């Protein structure tokens, strides 16, 4: 089974909760973890991974380059680039490598053959390690300024699937990226179940609603975990929304200083402070997941 854990936005505790859930689930199931937040991966760090056992470069992104020797400075490319990625710098038309999407429109419109070339560049790396808990993790890191983080995530999941076959694993737990764009769509694509994490704030509801719409596109069953459940007493909108949509609530985790402390120690909170209120709540949620979702 493939479970994607998503929140619509960072900072609501998605990776901490994911790491803690993995900590409990590992005793019962043969798992693989996938950190699909390729722009800011940290699940590996939280699971104590310090060295990667295998790294694969991902070459897939393309960026354009203009040869200043042959360019006649007509400016057509600059005018036609759909992403405004060609700038006039000291009299030369230059592609901004950090914003180019690699569509090659500049190459197609350029009147001087060979002036614009589309180059394949590294878009990032995908890595594999065995966590100290025994299960494998796949993680990716997008290179700074590169497009196509979605493709990186798709490739990560491919690798994870191969490993699942090879090692005869049962479940893939995917820690999705923030947002609702290509990375998240790639994280959710193919998942059997989505677990959403939100906190009771207007910003977090707004984000989780948006990611839930993406989940609905895929027609996946969704569940909700409410984190920092007590930071905003009297705020019922999150529960009401979930009830209205028919999204079962797996549990609530109280705000607990043990969580930031455990993150600073680079450990799942349930391992660092097993008796902290947050840890107990997560343990109960893990039991519900085992009983209801992974049964």
């Amino acid at each position, binding site marked *: 089974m493939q479970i994607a854990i998503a929140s619509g936005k960072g900072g609501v505790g998605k990776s901490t909760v994911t790491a803690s859930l993995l900590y409990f689930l590992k005793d019962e199931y043969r798992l693989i973890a996938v950190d699909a937040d390729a*722009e800011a991966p940290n699940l590996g760090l939280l699971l104590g991974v310090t060295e990667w056992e295998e790294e694969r470069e991902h070459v897939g992104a393309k960026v354009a380059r203009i040869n200043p020797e042959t360019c006649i400075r007509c400016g057509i490319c600059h005018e036609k680039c759909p992403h405004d990625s060609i700038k006039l710098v000291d009299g030369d038309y230059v592609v901004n490598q950090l914003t180019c999407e690699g569509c*090659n*429109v500049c190459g197609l419109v350029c009147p001087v053959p060979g002036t614009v070339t589309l180059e394949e560049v590294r878009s990032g790396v995908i890595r594999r390690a065995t966590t100290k808990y025994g299960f494998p993790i796949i993680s990716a890191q997008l290179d*700074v*300024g590169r497009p196509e983080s979605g493709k990186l995530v798709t490739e990560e999941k491919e690798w994870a699937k191969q490993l699942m076959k090879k090692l005869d694993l049962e479940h893939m737990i995917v820690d999705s990226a*923030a947002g609702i764009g290509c990375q998240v769509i790639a994280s959710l694509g193919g998942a059997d179940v989505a677990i959403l994490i939100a906190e009771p704030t207007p910003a977090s509801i*707004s*984000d989780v609603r948006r990611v839930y719409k993406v989940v609905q596109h895929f027609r996946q069953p969704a569940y909700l975990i409410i984190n920092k459940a007590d930071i905003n007493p009297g705020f019922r909108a999150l529960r009401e929304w979930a009830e209205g949509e028919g999204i079962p609530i797996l549990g609530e985790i109280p705000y607990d200083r043990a969580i930031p402390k455990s993150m600073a120690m680079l450990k799942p909170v349930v391992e660092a402070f097993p008796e902290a209120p947050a840890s107990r709540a997560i343990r109960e949620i893990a039991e519900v997941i085992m009983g209801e979702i992974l049964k």
Partner: protein
Amino acid sequence: MQIAVSGGKGGTGKSTIAVNLAVALANRIEIALADLDVEAPNDHLLLGVELANEEPVTQFMPKFDYSKCTRCRKCAEVCEEHAIITLKDGTPFLMPTLCSGCRACEIVCPVPGAILEGSRLVGHTYVTETPYGFPLVTGKLLEGEERSMPLVVVAKKRAQALNKDLILVDTAAGTGNTVSKAIEDSKLLIAVTEPTPLGLHDLELILELGRLMSIPTWIVVNRADLGDVKEVEKLATKYGAEIVAEIPYSEAIVRSYVAGRPIVLKDGPEAEIFKGLADRVAEFLKEVI
């Protein structure tokens, strides 16, 4: 003139900093705040305002006139997104969600009129007047759309069209090319981080981006009491960045965040920190103008 606030990863308090800085700067200079976190825009919630003046953002999408199309497959060959598939006889079909709207297919199609102008709604931009003396420009990607780049580009243009002295940009999380697009043209990058191992990991990436874009970078350490600021200093030195403010963890900030009322409007030590930061930004602006 433009300044960007970014943070590498989500949840570092980037939007809190951007919003409070905008409020604190608004009585000194004509500014616009641009929320370019188009996948999860939240600045309006932090400011307690409803988004207004909605404008659709559409993207080109080829439409084929099969009575004219000669099935030459050229359009499919140039599509870098592989959004066009062809049947055995060469008939092109579009897979709409893959299309980036770049028009490469239209440019190469040899038959006039075989590719028609289609379009698809990909999101909206908003310009909302706030009660704090500045407008907020917001880009919002439609759910199910994969590409945030067009929204970032259009929202940024809408902010520029307001002709303010300063655009303060709040970027998305991460360091991919849509974040670089949001930051592009900034005279200053303010990187927000937490002094934790995870925070440092993400800070390094955003500092790297600032370096690649040759933009002077400041660091604001949020929840500064959660970890060791010395580690942040080491990174700052490595990248020639400067730590300009340290904000302790504060219940008052959490409450103001939840209530949609910027903390800088209240009296208290947190407000003073933001005012101090605004002073520094104002000084910086004087120097570069």
